[in-house]
């Protein structure tokens, strides 16, 4: 198949649930203003934990968190539903797509852990019983197997095509969109509701990151706790949220007069085969993922106008990612604006890759690059332009987003303002 005949994939709807802003536009305003949403942990009692900061979502009171049959939906599912509804309304495809040509592909790293823990406490009598009591709520199974999240969204939008969750740890939010784009390109589907969701903030997850000292302990100054690329960075801040998109095959989108945010032009992913949590400083595999994404996009490094970095706020990541960008983008890495929105919205594990894609789409729409907040002490080992503290006007047409996660996953995606040959 020649490039001319290839099916192309565009984003026509965006929905966001993020710390500090529920809804696409509040989220975007917050990013442009460089406001941080990290705060003292409140989804669970912070006492007794090493890290007591988090980036939490304040859901509007009118959000429905139960199914019509009364089942209590997990918080990650609720986020996905809210974001999916916003994206669906934004794209407004109405009944353009037959149900079997519409699919759902959502990312999540830890699924319904929070609900599992809540039910576990009850059924184990607060950890006393190994043989938990027999009387479980019927929705326990939905928490147990997180493909239930995608199933709820499929019910919402009326999808009968392939429905799945992609769960590749902290790159899930890129990988789900990459997978969805491939389903459209290959002709399996014409439209996919894709994105990612995560609501991991409960005791077990806070404790497990405590135990590997990965999260920030800036408990006295939570609003400054996430400091990617800053010499004083001290770990990531656990976050939550969701971003969901409507992806459509280009000719369908144009035929129905849809407004296009951008085209998904390139995606690449690699494993580092090194360590479940560790990264090698040379960034070789992330660089390969970036190169694969550029190759698929048929884009060269000088064309990249903005990089949305993984920028989790650990020293290991800062070095790894900077090395990977230098390896893959060459001299362009030293000039291109690079920022990490995790400085503001924290690290929502499987969701953040999609939340960062949402930011990229809005960069392309408005020509503004969000800053890396809390970047006040430059690190002499990090020579790139990390857009400290203040957003910047950049007439971006082609942007790159990167992700890196537990399990060794390294992913990258290239998005570009739509150009249609007429």
């Amino acid at each position, binding site marked *: 198949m020649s490039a001319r005949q290839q099916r192309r994939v565009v984003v026509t709807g965006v929905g966001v649930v993020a710390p500090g802003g529920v809804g696409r536009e509040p989220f975007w305003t917050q990013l442009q203003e460089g406001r941080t949403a990290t705060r003292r942990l409140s989804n669970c009692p912070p006492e007794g*934990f090493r890290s007591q900061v988090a980036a939490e979502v304040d859901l509007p009171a009118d959000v429905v968190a139960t199914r019509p049959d009364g089942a209590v939906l997990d918080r990650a599912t609720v986020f996905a539903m809210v974001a999916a509804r916003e994206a669906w309304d934004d794209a407004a495809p109405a009944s353009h797509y037959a149900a079997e040509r519409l699919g759902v592909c959502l990312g999540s790293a830890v699924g319904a852990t929070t609900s599992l823990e809540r039910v*576990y406490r009850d059924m184990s009598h607060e950890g006393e019983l190994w043989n938990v009591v*027999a009387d479980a709520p*019927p929705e326990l199974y939905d928490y147990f197997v997180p493909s239930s999240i995608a199933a709820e969204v499929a019910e919402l939008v009326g999808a*009968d095509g392939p429905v799945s969750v992609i769960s590749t740890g902290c790159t899930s939010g890129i*990988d789900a969109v990459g997978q969805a784009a491939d389903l459209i390109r290959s*002709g399996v589907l014409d439209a996919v509701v894709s994105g990612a969701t995560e609501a991991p903030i409960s005791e077990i997850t806070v404790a497990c990151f405590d135990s*590997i000292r990965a999260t920030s302990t800036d408990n006295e100054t939570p609003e400054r706790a996430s400091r990617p690329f800053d010499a004083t960075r001290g770990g990531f801040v656990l976050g939550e949220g969701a971003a969901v998109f409507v992806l459509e095959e280009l000719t369908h989108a144009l035929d129905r007069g849809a407004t296009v945010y951008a085209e998904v032009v390139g995606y690449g992913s690699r494993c580092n*085969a090194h360590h479940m949590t560790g990264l090698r400083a040379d960034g070789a595999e992330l660089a390969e993922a970036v190169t694969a994404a550029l190759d698929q996009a048929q884009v060269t490094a000088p064309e990249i106008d903005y990089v949305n970095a993984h920028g989790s706020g650990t020293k290991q990541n800062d070095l790894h990612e900077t090395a990977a960008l230098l390896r893959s983008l060459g001299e362009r890495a030293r000039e291109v604006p690079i920022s990490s929105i995790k400085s503001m919205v924290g690290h929502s594990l499987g969701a953040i890759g999609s939340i960062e894609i949402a930011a990229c789409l809005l960069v392309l729409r408005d020509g503004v690059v969000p800053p890396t907040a809390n970047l006040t002490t430059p690190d002499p080992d990090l020579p790139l332009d990390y857009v400290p503290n203040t957003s910047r006007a950049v007439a971006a047409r082609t942007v790159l987003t990167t992700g890196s996660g537990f399990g060794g996953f390294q992913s990258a995606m290239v998005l570009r303002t739509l150009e249609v040959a007429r």
Partner: protein
Amino acid sequence: MIREPAAITGIGIVSPIGNDREAHWIAQQKGVHGIAAVERFDASSYASTLAGEVRDLDPAPALGGRLMSSTDWMTQMSLVAAAEAVADSGIAERHEPGRCGVFTASTAGGYEFGQRELQNLWSRGPKYVSAYQSYAWFYAVNTGQISIRHGFKGHSGVVVADAAGALDALASSAAHLHHGNAAMVSGAVDGTLCPWGWVAHVAGGGTTSASDPETAYLPFDPRASGAVVGEGGAHLVLERAADATGRAYALLVGHASGFVRSSQDPTTVLRRVVEAALADADVRPDRIDLVLADGAGTVAADADEAAVLRSVFGPRRVPVTVPKAAVGRLQAGGAALDVAVAALALRDGLTPPTVHSQVDPAHGIDLVTEPRAGSLNSVLVVARGRGGFVSAVVLTSPHHHPEGA
């Protein structure tokens, strides 16, 4: 969708009836079953008390102490099966590891590890939570650990689509061969035999309360009372068919999947998915020699599946078998094991039986209940997950030359 046929060149199995490929396959042909009262924990207070447990497997010598302490039992089983599949295929010698990827399905992650750490947290406090908890439970663990163990750095992934996910993982693996990976480790190994997993299975419904292992899980039998939960699964190595001449067990030639919304008749979607998989494979229904059915083991779900098979294959009473009747339902691991068994059936021209079941004649299918010899060219595998997930794949013999395509 399978754009180019993918060859299955390596198979690794860990199951309740065999801890390697040939042991499982021999037991499967003999009609051995591995269903018994749960031994892993005391299940006597729960509504279901039978399981298909993996027995007499000691992964410690192969994996070493550090991996044993940092992984759940299901990951240990997965690493054993993956190592067998990789060795079987010879890909480590044949391809650059940087161009090999891993794409598995998961359903519940390392759940027993999770229960233990939840217990440590709530009975003793946060400082007692394992440093490995952050990656021993999550769904990506098997792919990550297989990648590290074998040095595979190519494009990899993890899909969760309940029990149907393993077929989707195979299709994604085939796509990554198309996009440049030289080989993929795929499939799934699952295991949730701990009290906290058990109550979730029971809550989901569809598990039997029967206590006789011989009559507990009876797919397509009018006495069907639900399924038995099991553990284990299979990993498969896929390579491009053109690179695997003379080495393939079978070719993966078609895939489709779909979702049954709660308002829908499940047979509508299941039929569409089966027909789409056949069309993708370019194999006419009359060329299918055998169906490895999902066989949920409930009267209603089995009736739906049989109705779809009748409507797709017509009155000829297509041969159907449910090998998982011998081991229980292994979540995503079950569909992966079905594909492995289908590949071995194609290799040897042997159809393994559905143990214990006496088919309801109203189903209009030829349920194979005794081992049956006879060359096979094309096999359909169907997987249905709880909550509406449906997938199907078509495998063909590597020696088969499609006719009339």
